[in-house]
């Protein structure tokens, strides 16, 4: 299973763009990349998912280089409510169906005024 490495913590200020980079050197062909946000004592909330290149939704952008050994979550103009733990994970999709997510320890993002 591909292991992910991301910074333990990051600090930012309201209105700034935040980029969190995740390393997944041994990502396999069947693997895809997903980012989740989690607030204390709540279940993780899906942010964005991608396989290669760039993906953008109303919340964030995900940049994946051609070798797929890393990915960067970009949060535009963060606010205090974006203070949370962000997990980068590589999901294994089995050719026979089914999937498996492996979470790391995540990045604690703290946004201040």
């Amino acid at each position, binding site marked *: 299973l591909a292991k992910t490495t991301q910074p333990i913590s990051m600090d930012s200020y309201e209105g700034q763009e935040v980029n969190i980079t995740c390393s997944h050197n041994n990502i396999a062909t*069947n693997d*895809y990349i*997903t980012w*989740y946000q989690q607030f204390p*004592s*709540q*279940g*993780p*909330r*899906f942010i964005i*998912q991608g*396989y290669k290149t760039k993906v953008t939704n109303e919340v964030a952008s995900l940049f994946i280089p051609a070798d797929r050994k890393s990915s960067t979550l970009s949060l535009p103009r963060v606010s205090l409510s974006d203070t949370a733990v962000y*997990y980068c994970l590589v*999901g294994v*999709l*089995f*050719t026979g*169906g*089914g*999937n*498996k*997510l*492996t*979470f*790391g*320890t*995540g990045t604690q993002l703290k946004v201040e005024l």
Partner: protein
Amino acid sequence: DAGVTQSPTHLIKTRGQQVTLRCSPKSGHDTVSWYQQALGQGPQFIFQYYEEEERQRGNFPDRFSGHQFPNYSSELNVNALLLGDSALYLCASSLRAYFPTSTDTQYFGPGTRLTVL
């Protein structure tokens, strides 16, 4: 459209007891996965069910077992509880995906906080 629901919200048990946690998936989803999240850690995959069978399993002992019902809801059972089983138990649902034609997105419920005394 109801999201993933879990019950109960909180639960307190003593060592050696057994516990059952319940999960109802998001409408339209057929796959349920269970995770254990200890304080300060990321969620750890326990197992995944679809078509009423356990399909994938993480590194958890046989004390952890589950079930999926025809309506896709699921139960997680833990026997002979240990202090170390105290954690937030998360259920996630998704629509079964087949690489490379589709990927899935797992949606998580709010979790059940289990405390073992």
